[in-house]
């Protein structure tokens, strides 16, 4: 009886793991086999990964550039915004916070459509990578603001700042010396979230991209649609290698920020 209560959950867990892992393993293997239809017996190769690199390295660099630019913009706008919200708690701040968070609730497609309607006629802007950047900033900003805000809300910011002011520090110095260092765990967690989301974002980017501006996930869709299966699978492998370490770092940083916020 006891063995059943133990083994049953174990079997369910293993089945669930297999359900999640087998497609991943299969896809990874498909990107490494010489001929997918002949199976593993045809031998392993890195040729397809080389193909992905020659075909899509532009997408990889565009995604990295976009993610970093998105990070810089969300840092410059998001950290002071979170600070302002933390220093002035009240109904107006809460409404503003909800407003910043709106892109979380609105589907990426709708957001992209709105951007296209508004800016689609500005040709230079429409075809430049900064157009996609605007979309990514809108989409990732709430994650930065909320992450920083939760850490700032947990410390007695007002008294800390009063302490610094009594020692002769003006507003700018207080922000640099007191606010930013104490918000750092939240900033780090927010930054990793922003980079991960920006690299993986598909919905909005797919609507905003042009044939010359394919990001990593858009390129992935493209390779599925128009390349042979081995290349598409190799692409998935490249995507995994880029996103999984980021995802793990993000988990670690958010857990740390939450410990501090508590």
């Amino acid at each position, binding site marked *: 009886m006891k063995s059943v209560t133990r083994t049953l959950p174990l079997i369910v867990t293993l089945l669930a793991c297999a359900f999640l892992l087998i497609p991943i393993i299969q896809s990874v293997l498909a990107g490494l086999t010489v001929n997918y239809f002949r199976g593993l017996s045809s031998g392993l190769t890195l040729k397809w990964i080389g193909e992905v690199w020659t075909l899509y390295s532009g997408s990889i660099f565009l995604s990295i550039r976009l993610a970093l630019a998105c990070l810089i913009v969300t840092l410059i706008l998001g950290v002071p915004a979170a600070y302002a919200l933390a220093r002035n708690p009240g109904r107006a701040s809460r409404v503003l916070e909800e407003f910043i968070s709106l892109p979380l609730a609105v589907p990426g497609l709708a957001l992209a459509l709105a951007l296209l309607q508004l800016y689609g006629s500005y040709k230079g802007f429409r075809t430049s990578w900064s157009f996609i950047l605007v979309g990514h900033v809108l989409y990732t900003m709430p994650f930065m603001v909320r992450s920083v805000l939760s850490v700032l809300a947990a410390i007695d910011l007002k*008294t*800390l700042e*009063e302490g610094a*002011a*009594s*020692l*002769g*520090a003006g507003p700018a110095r207080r922000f640099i*010396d007191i606010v930013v260092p*104490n918000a750092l765990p939240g900033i780090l967690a927010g930054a990793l979230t922003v980079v991960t989301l920006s690299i993986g974002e598909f919905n909005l980017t797919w609507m905003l991209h042009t044939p010359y501006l394919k990001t990593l996930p858009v390129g992935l869709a493209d390779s599925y649609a128009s390349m042979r299966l081995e290349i598409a699978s190799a692409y998935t492998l490249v995507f995994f290698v880029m996103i999984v370490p980021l995802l793990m770092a993000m988990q670690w940083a958010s857990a740390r920020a939450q410990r501090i916020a508590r």
Partner: protein
Amino acid sequence: MTLRLSNIAKTFPDGTRALLPTDLEISQGEIVSLLGPSGCGKSTLLRIIAGLETPDTGARVMFEGEDVTRQSVETRRIGMVFQSYALFPNMSVRGNIGYGLKMQKLGRAEIDARVNEVIALCRLDAQADRAITALSGGQRQRVALARAVAPRPRVLLLDEPLSALDAALRAELRDELALLLRQFGITAIFVTHDQTEAMAIADRVAVMRQGEVAQIGTPEALYRNPATGFIARFIGDAMPLEGRIEADRLYLPGGVLDLPKSAEGHEVLVRPEDIRLDPDGPLAARVEAVTFLGTHYRLALADASQGVIFALHTGLSAPRPGDDLRLSIAPEALLILPRERTA
């Protein structure tokens, strides 16, 4: 530095009058305590002196003849110790203490020298390079004090500096704080709700009540000559003797007391240490409870006055609950004070 406050008042946006117009003068090197129950306006007054709160129009805060009313907190050159200490968790002990000196744009060498000097004075040598989170409550309190005095402020302001500590440590640090403040020689104002703390540390105590300074004076003056019943109750735990006053006689449930002077329209108070057990005394009382406090017994007595009064009794043995006994009170120990409007 001499500090002169005139016509300081504070009305909050919702109309609450936290502080009624107040004048106060504090001379160079003097340590003044603002003492009062919570909500009496003492913290507001301190924050106005610091520049963290803006007083109503017409107020003037003068530092050594210089009008600083409109100056922001960072330009006033004050030192402040907060109730929660407000130490910067992102800096070490040394970083915290040196922060004010860094803001004064002093050289590296001078900052180090001055930080070391204050660290030695506050006996923080062993903790100098630790993180703030690695310190005990008492050590944090000393770091907060060291940080506030390191930039040599014109006035040192302390907001309930001991209230975050537990009782045993508080008594110990109270004496230490008094000693350190005297060593610094800085004009200091400190806010507290604890009368023993105020008496132990301050040269002068300003007792505050409902946004007003009720009386200001040396601890002895406040104890011996309280101006009102409120002050007598707050400083030294005086108890009112409720009875009928006819000329110079007080008729109590337990007997009749002779007063040193005619006291009609006044109230009569007495402190627990002035009530004697005396077989020939004029007042009868019954013992309700006895508490042994080491150096003395604290007796709760019924029937002498309305309600229970307390007496301190030194001796090797004490009466038991339920015993009937007689009390006497020396006429000069009775505090005869004008009756106040009840608050």
